[in-house]
C-alpha cells in the first residue's frame, strides 16, 4: 500500500486525513479527530 495524500490545502487535507488515518477516536467524532491532528502537527514541528 503506497497510498498518498495531497496535503497542500489545509482545510481540505485536514478533513481528508481525519477520515483516512487510523486513530483511537471514532469516525463519528470528526471534530475530535481533527483537533488530534492539529495537536499532532503542533508536536511534529518541534521535532
Amino acid at each position: 500500500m503506497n497510498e498518498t495524500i495531497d496535503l497542500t490545502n489545509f482545510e481540505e487535507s485536514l478533513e481528508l486525513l481525519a477520515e483516512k488515518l487510523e486513530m483511537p477516536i471514532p469516525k463519528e467524532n470528526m471534530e475530535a479527530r481533527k483537533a488530534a491532528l492539529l495537536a499532532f502537527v503542533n508536536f511534529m514541528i518541534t521535532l
Partner: protein
Amino acid sequence: MGMSPKELAAYRIQLIRDATGFQKKPERIPNISFFVTWKILDAGYKLTEAMSDYDIMEKFVLYHMQHYRFDQVFDVGVRNAYRVSKAMQSSSYIVDDDAEVVSYKDFAYCKPEETDQFAANYYKFLWEVGMPRKFPWWGKDAPLSVIQNAYNEQNQFFAFSQHIRQVLYEDLGIPFNGAPNPYATISMETVLAYVFGMRGVAIMMRRDKGKLHAVLDALDALFFTPQLEKLKQIEGPNLNYSFDYIAAILAHNFMNISQWEEFYWPYLKKVLDVLAEKKCNCVLFMEGSALRFADYFKDYPKGLITLLPEQDDVFELRKAMPNVAILGGMKNSMLGNGTKQECLDYAKRLIDELGADGGYLFSQDKMGSYRIDANPENLKAVCDFVLDYRPSQS
C-alpha cells in the same frame, strides 16, 4: 520495616514540599536527578539503541534511580522524542554513538516576511508552509503510511511517558513530578525555539518589533491566554505531586532588560501571580543565567518559586533572592573531574549553607548529558552522603 513504595513516594513529596516551602525544616535534603542522556551511557548502552527502544529506556531509567537512590527525576528517558522524529523522517537529531553526543539542529519555519500569513491563521500556516519546510515530503503526494507511522509513534511515546512514571511510582516510590495543571506556554519560547529561531528572534527584537508582536499575539490568543484562564480555575496545590508547575526558561538569555520587560516578563508575571494566589509551588528552570533577573523574583512569597539555575553561583543567588528555593548547585564539572573528597566537601557545603533552614533541594547544575558530566563513583558517594546527612538544625 521499610516503607511501601506508596508510603515512600508520599514521604518524598513531603520532603520536597517542605524544602520548597521554607515552612518547615526538611528531615533531610531531597536529592533530585537532573541527568538526561548520561543515564544511558552510565548504564552501558549506546545512545541510538537506548533512544530507539522503550524496553532499554525503562531499564536504564530504573537502573539510574535504584543505583543512586534519587528521590525524584526530571527526565524519565523521554527528553528526546527520537523515535517519533525518525518516523517523520526528520534530520533534526544527530546522534553520534562514537562521540557519545546528541545534537539538535536549530530550525526556523517562518520567515519575517511571512508574519502576516502566520498571524492570520496559525494552523493553516503551519500545515501549508511550516510542515513542508521542515519535512520536505509533506506536500502534494505525501505517503499516508509515513503519517500513520508517525502518528502511532507519537501515541507510543506518550504511552511510554506515562508508563515509566507509573513504574517508578509503583516499584520504587518515586513521586510523580509535575502536577497535570494547565501549562501556559510563554509565546516567546515557541517563537525562539521553532518559529523564527534564535538568530531570527535576536534580529527581530531590534528591527521588526511590530511583526514580532503580531506573531506573539497570535500565539497568545491560541495558547497562552486560554491556558492561563484554565490555570486560574485550579483549586490550589496538588499534594500528590512534587511540584505544581514546572517551566523551562531559555529566551531570557537573548534579551537585554528592556527586551525582557517588553517581550517576556509581562507573561511570566501573569503565570507567577496566579500560582502565588493559589499558593502553589513552581520550578523555574532558567537555562543560562538567572542572576541578572533577581529583582523580578525577589518580592514573591517564600514557597512559590524554586529556581533551577544553570550557570549562576548558587550562593550568590541565595543572597540576591532569599525568598527563592534553589534546586541544583552540584557541579557536574566536579562530579566528572574532581576527587571523591572534593565532591563530598562541596555537597556538604551546599547543604549546610543553602539547606539547613529549608529552601534547598540537592541536584546538579547541568542537564547531565555527556560521560564527563559525572564519574559514577563520585556520584554514588555524593548520593549516599545526601541520603544519610542531616544538616544542623539549630
